[in-house]
């Protein structure tokens, strides 16, 4: 689906990503994890074709992203930024409908297919009962789910979600992660930035660990988040265990004056 090869990105003259190699496949949930400022959001923007690279290539289905028209790209990739918001106080249904913009014919209204996709996306993110509410009157968690529905309304082949669950309570975190899991099982490629390592461990097929702009590990969650890497990169230790054959992880202590020292 999406392949990044030796990708480097600078922002404001400062290099943010170095030599990144990463692939995202249809049918998998790829988790992007790493400490604050590691370059996770820049990686998502680069994958969405929103920021120019200084070196390397990003290809979608074998074609360089730069060669795709923005309109075509928009029908294939949905991008949900961190702290997403809607500036005008529109109703939930209208906000979700914005996700259909890439599919609309110029000067023509939405079709029945558009209406169905909007309904599906709203049901998926469980915001159907909010449909006539104004988005500025919603709680942070409700708003986050509405904006996720907006991203899903375009029926993308690849969903790039930058911390979609950080504003959610535990119930809705589990709920949204389950939905992302199910979308991937139905064939979507899902890349999701997560700060919650427990969720990353539980729901992702694969984790890419990024630190100081470099991918330092890429593989099964259990192997990527090895005790050594947790200590080196995150400066924490975690409790680990096994439930019905599925490994879990719980961040437990942080390293106050460890070998890594202060960053």
């Amino acid at each position, binding site marked *: 689906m999406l392949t990044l090869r030796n990708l480097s990105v600078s922002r404001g003259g400062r290099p943010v990503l170095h030599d990144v190699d990463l692939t995202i496949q249809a049918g998998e949930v790829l988790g992007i994890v790493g400490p604050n400022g590691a370059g996770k959001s820049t990686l998502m923007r680069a994958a969405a074709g929103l920021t120019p690279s200084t070196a390397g290539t990003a290809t979608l289905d074998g074609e360089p992203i730069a060669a795709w028209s923005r309109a075509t790209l928009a029908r294939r990739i949905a991008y949900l930024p961190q702290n*997403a*918001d809607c500036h005008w106080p*529109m109703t939930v249904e209208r906000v979700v409908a914005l996700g259909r913009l*890439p599919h609309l014919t110029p000067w023509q209204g939405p079709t029945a297919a558009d209406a169905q996709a909007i309904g599906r996306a709203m049901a998926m993110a469980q915001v159907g009962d909010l449909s006539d509410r104004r988005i500025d009157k919603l709680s942070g968690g409700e708003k986050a789910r509405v904006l996720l529905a907006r991203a899903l309304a375009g029926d993308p082949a690849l969903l790039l979600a930058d911390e979609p669950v950080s504003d959610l309570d535990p119930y809705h975190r589990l709920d949204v992660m389950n939905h992302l899991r199910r979308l991937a099982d139905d064939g979507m490629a899902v890349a999701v930035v997560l700060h919650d390592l427990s969720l990353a461990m539980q729901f992702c097929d694969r984790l890419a660990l990024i630190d100081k702009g470099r991918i330092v590990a890429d593989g099964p969650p259990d192997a990527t988040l090895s005790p050594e890497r947790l200590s080196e990169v995150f400066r924490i230790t975690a409790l680990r265990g096994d439930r019905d054959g599925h490994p879990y992880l719980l961040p437990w202590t942080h390293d106050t004056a460890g070998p890594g020292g202060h960053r």
Partner: protein
Amino acid sequence: MTALDIPIRQTRPIGLFVLLGGGTVAAFLLSLAMGPTAIGPGDLLRAFLGTADGPTTLIVWELRLPRALLGLMIGATLGLTGAGLQGLFRNPLAEPGLIGASSLAAFGAVVAMYFGLYALFAAALPLSAMLGAVTAVMILHLLAGRNAGALTIILAGVAISSLGAALIALAINLSNNLFAVTEIVFWLMGSLADRSMDQVWLAAPFMVAGWLLVGGTGRALDALALGDETAMSLGVDLPRTRLKLILGTALSVGGAVAVSGTIGFVGLVVPHLLRPFVGYQPSTLLPASALGGAILLLLADVAVRVVPTEAELRLGVLTALIGVPFFLGLILKTRREMA
């Protein structure tokens, strides 16, 4: 709940557009009827059918019609471009004057008066005003660059407006011709009085071209509600959208200022009042604000004719008197929401 249980209504506020359309027609007819000589509906109809008496036909065709047409077109221009700029900057305080186009267009007109160019050929005035508006856009591009944020564009607009005001003040300062100074000062106040069809035909092509550019950005403005990056991820060509809006504003506002002088605040007031009635949807707000702007300016122009003052009240003075308190109220409201 399954997907099919959720009713999807892409609501178009048809009622609102019927109301605005009807209001525009009514305000237009009122503008034809009202004035020193009141003309009844029957006479108005006969004037258009060509069966009215000579003076009535002359008043309707030569005096009232150009004035009403300009009120309609300039009001629509100010409403439409205000809604477009507010959508682009995601800021309810934006308006055509903001990017400095009105200010430099007025300076362009003042130059034409100052040097008496318009006495040489009539088109000098509008052309000079449009040149001013286009210059404002070019300075904006130089100051703000290709990928500037909204704040940079707003600050650049403030600088350009100040430049326009300073240059106009310079022209007045250096003038030793009291007649020219009086003419410039009155021009700056904005008016639709004593205009002819020549001015309508002169300004119309520029205004219509500007309307087409701004009107074509509706869906991009909808996407921009979600922020620049998300809009780009939805397929919006951001630099192109900005260019269309800024160029469209320069063309239509330049055309408007050329024939009416500066008329402010219509582009600020109208989109703000109408926004709740279109569900805050930027694309729907564009046509609604065009109609709303036409209604407001036509009615304001009727008001300046009806209000019994010794000299006729200037249209731009009236819109500013209404607009400035509104503007201050809007700032207070925006501040409260941000606090």
